[in-house]
């Protein structure tokens, strides 16, 4: 089926190129039929790429090692769950996933908008298909997913052990969905600029896709952080790694965009700003893909090679120059229809929040690309670490969280002192009481930043709580409903508003978890023998016993740990280090089972109060003499078999392999039978679980905002206001 896959990619490339031409011809000369044909090219592209992607997935699931990509990224011992995900651990599979998701989301966007934005949509279609053509060109000429091997190996090299984590099933598809969904408002913005249809319609038509992109990218980022926390064995969730930062950049500018478009929708303001934001977000989404796939910056997450650098740089260069050129070219059409009524208004808060978000994005961009910038200027590649990022990010994030609490309290257009009194007193009191209560906790005053963050988070939560309460009371007053029904009713009728508020509350909780867990974290690296204990932040951690398990997939050496406090049992934790066999035969017949890649399974006791996190790093040096002796013995035996009678060779090799497996198991068991000290890292992090809870609340809020109101309800509400305005119109024209 590899031939079919290759042919389908060529068909898809041809369809995409045709669609670009048909859409542009239809938009500017040919008329509706060509435009429709161009749009249908996107649907056809989605269909063709679905078949191509399915062929690749089936090859992985069947362990068809005639496909180069399967032989180098999977194996028969890889669990089925991970075989399915191994497709996007490869460069080729990732690119195919990217373009497939782009075709699917683009089809959905063009289907939804087929009777709207009629002037803008054909150009947007051409832009989306240009992206598709670019990625298809990469899969045809640079990183072919359907390349076959002349000599089919019996076994594949297996999936990178670090990627064997449930989060990795969803992390790349969510990130790529975010990137490709951001291409949709980008493409429509290009279309709006070219056709000079720069009012609210293109924004109304694509805002849901921008929100979906924000949501998917956010989920992808959090899954990546969770993977880092539970898989990488260093105890953190965010390291300001270039690839992490690459996904954060479009998320930050995208967050700014989904706020500032509300001002353009309502007031016809900030058109230059919005166009620039969405063009920057689309470009940063491609930049993110480029950083992951090119390996241009050193990263623990970069699984790509560097052969794609030049084509990506050309695309990004064209996007930057084209975007700037278009905004400058259309600057006369981008003038605001209104001016800001007051600096004390929701519009002003949004604007300030936008500046902070773009500031954050700039800091992240500068820190990420500093190695390249420094190399270009000084000839020496230098990088900046977490302390540099923290220095700028922490104050900006503090202001951002504060604004997420202030925003919901401020009405559109202007804020009066009376509404300040009504809105701000309770949240300010909540913040004050929280900070005072926190300062009474011993040691808390040593971390003023964390105390301040906690106060501002209390402000946000009180602000959102107050808004929900008042909304519910207003609904109760008008509809005479019970409190839960009224709350559900007011939220259902104002999903975008209250979904946004829930997002703010979740984000505040998330940042509280970040601030407190990083400020009050206790970490200790220690070497223990079975029976020995260590104390970390008041917890006694005892190494109860060693564990070992040898399987064909990997050898796991681990430990069972008992956690207690003041003599009371708290938890039993299990942590292991898995060693995957190497394909390098120079490591020896036995040695290669201990010399491949390795990964950690952390022992984690997560709780609302604190996380107790541990990981083992077994020292294999004491096993080296036994492994070397095994290598020599089996090598001699293998030489004997190969020089012996050919008739008995196959049976002898099988017997030898059985003995080898028993020997490998026996070597691994020595970790249990004759245990030696193992290295451990212990971390006690207060409120770390709040990071994940905050993320869940944030995304539930995002889903709430994204969920469309029933069409009938929308029409009913709209008709009600239309009738009121019509009565007014009748009075003014009499």
């Amino acid at each position, binding site marked *: 089926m590899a031939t*079919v896959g290759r*042919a*389908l990619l060529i*068909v898809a490339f041809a*369809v995409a190129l045709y*669609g670009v031409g*048909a859409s542009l011809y239809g938009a500017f000369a*040919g*008329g*509706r*039929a*060509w435009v*429709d*044909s161009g749009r*249908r*090219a996107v*649907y*056809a592209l989605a269909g*063709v790429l679905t078949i191509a992607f399915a062929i690749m997935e089936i090859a992985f699931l069947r362990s068809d090692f005639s496909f180069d990509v399967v032989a180098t990224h999977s194996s028969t011992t890889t669990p089925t769950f991970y075989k399915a995900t191994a497709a996007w651990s490869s460069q080729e599979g990732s690119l195919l996933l990217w373009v497939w998701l782009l075709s699917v989301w683009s089809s959905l966007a063009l289907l939804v908008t087929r009777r*709207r*934005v*009629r*002037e803008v949509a054909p150009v947007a279609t051409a832009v989306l298909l240009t992206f598709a053509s670019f990625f298809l060109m990469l899969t045809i000429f640079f990183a072919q997913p359907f390349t076959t091997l002349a000599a089919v190996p019996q076994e594949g090299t297996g999936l990178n052990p670090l990627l064997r984590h449930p989060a990795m099933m969803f992390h790349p598809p969510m990130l790529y969905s975010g990137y490709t969904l951001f291409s949709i408002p980008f493409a429509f913005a290009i279309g709006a600029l070219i056709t000079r*249809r720069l*009012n*609210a*319609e293109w*924004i*109304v038509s694509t805002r849901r896709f921008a929100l979906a992109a924000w949501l998917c990218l956010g989920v992808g980022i959090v899954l990546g952080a969770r993977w880092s926390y539970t898989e990488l064995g260093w105890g953190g969730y965010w390291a300001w790694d270039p690839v992490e930062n690459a996904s954060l950049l479009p998320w930050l500018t995208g967050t700014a965009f989904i706020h500032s478009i509300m001002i353009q*929708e*309502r007031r*016809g303001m900030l058109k230059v700003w919005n166009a620039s934001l969405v063009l920057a977000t689309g470009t940063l989404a491609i930049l993110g893909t480029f950083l992951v796939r090119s390996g241009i910056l050193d990263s623990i997450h970069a699984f790509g090679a560097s052969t794609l650098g030049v084509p990506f740089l050309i695309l990004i260069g064209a996007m930057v120059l084209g975007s700037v050129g278009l905004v400058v070219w259309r600057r006369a059409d981008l003038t605001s229809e209104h001016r800001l009524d007051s600096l004390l208004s929701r519009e002003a808060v949004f604007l300030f929040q936008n500046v902070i978000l773009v500031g954050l994005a700039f800091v992240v961009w500068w820190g990420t690309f500093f190695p390249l910038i420094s190399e270009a200027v000084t000839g020496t590649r230098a990088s900046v670490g977490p302390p540099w990022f923290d220095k700028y990010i922490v104050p900006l994030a503090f202001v951002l969280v504060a604004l997420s609490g202030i925003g919901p*309290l*401020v*009405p*559109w*257009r202007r804020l*009066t002192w009376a*509404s300040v009194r*009504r*809105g701000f007193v309770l949240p300010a009191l909540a913040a004050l009481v929280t900070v005072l209560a926190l300062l009474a906790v011993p040691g808390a005053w040593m971390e003023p930043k964390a105390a301040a963050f906690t106060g501002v988070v209390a402000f946000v939560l009180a602000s959102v709580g107050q808004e929900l309460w*008042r*909304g519910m*009371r*207003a609904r109760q007053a*008008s509809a005479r409903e019970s409190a839960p029904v009224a709350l559900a009713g007011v939220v259902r009728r*104002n999903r975008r*508003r209250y979904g946004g508020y829930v997002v703010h509350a979740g984000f505040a909780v998330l940042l509280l978890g970040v601030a407190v867990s990083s400020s009050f974290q206790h970490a200790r690296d220690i070497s223990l023998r079975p029976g020995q204990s260590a104390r970390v932040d008041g917890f006694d951690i005892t190494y109860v016993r060693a564990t070992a398990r040898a399987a064909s997939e990997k050898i796991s050496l681990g430990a069972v740990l008992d956690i207690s406090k003041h003599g009371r049992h708290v938890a039993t934790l299990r942590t292991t280090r898995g060693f995957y066999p190497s394909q390098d035969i120079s490591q020896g017949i036995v040695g290669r089972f201990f010399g491949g890649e390795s990964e950690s399974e952390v022992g984690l006791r997560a709780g609302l109060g604190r996380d107790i996190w541990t990981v083992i790093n077994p020292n294999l040096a004491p096993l080296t003499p036994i492994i070397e002796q095994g290598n020599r013995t089996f090598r001699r035996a293998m030489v004997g078999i190969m020089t012996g009678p050919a008739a008995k060779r196959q049976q002898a090799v099988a017997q030898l392999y059985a003995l080898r497996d028993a020997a490998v198991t026996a070597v691994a068991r020595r970790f249990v039978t004759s245990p030696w000290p193992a290295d451990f890292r212990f971390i006690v992090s207060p409120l770390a679980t709040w990071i994940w809870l905050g993320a869940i609340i944030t995304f539930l809020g995002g889903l709430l905002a994204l969920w469309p109101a029933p069409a009938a309800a929308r029409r009913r*509400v*709209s008709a009600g*206001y239309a*009738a*009121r*305005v*019509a*009565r*007014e*119109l*009748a009075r*003014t024209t009499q």
Partner: protein
Amino acid sequence: MIELLVVFAVVLAVVAVVGAPLRRGAQGLDPDAAARAELADLEAAKEAKYQEIRDAELDMRTGKLSDEDHRVLDGELRAEAIALLKRLDAVRARVGADAAPVAPPPAVG
């Protein structure tokens, strides 16, 4: 051979899907395209204005705006909505017969 047939079938399906609008014949450019686009823009602006009126009402009911502030703001928003409706009616008249009045007939009384 089967592989060839599969690819051929996919190509046929693609040609059928993509070529269908062209078989219906070229319709040419819509002479009213600009007016229709303006109409769509104004419809979007009208819906956004209704949303703004609704938000102001909710702000008043949740205590963010006083009755007096709401009365002033609501007046401004309605005036802007009326201006939009007038522009909509003008554009609809330009576009042609299929133009229905944007707002329903005013209630009497």
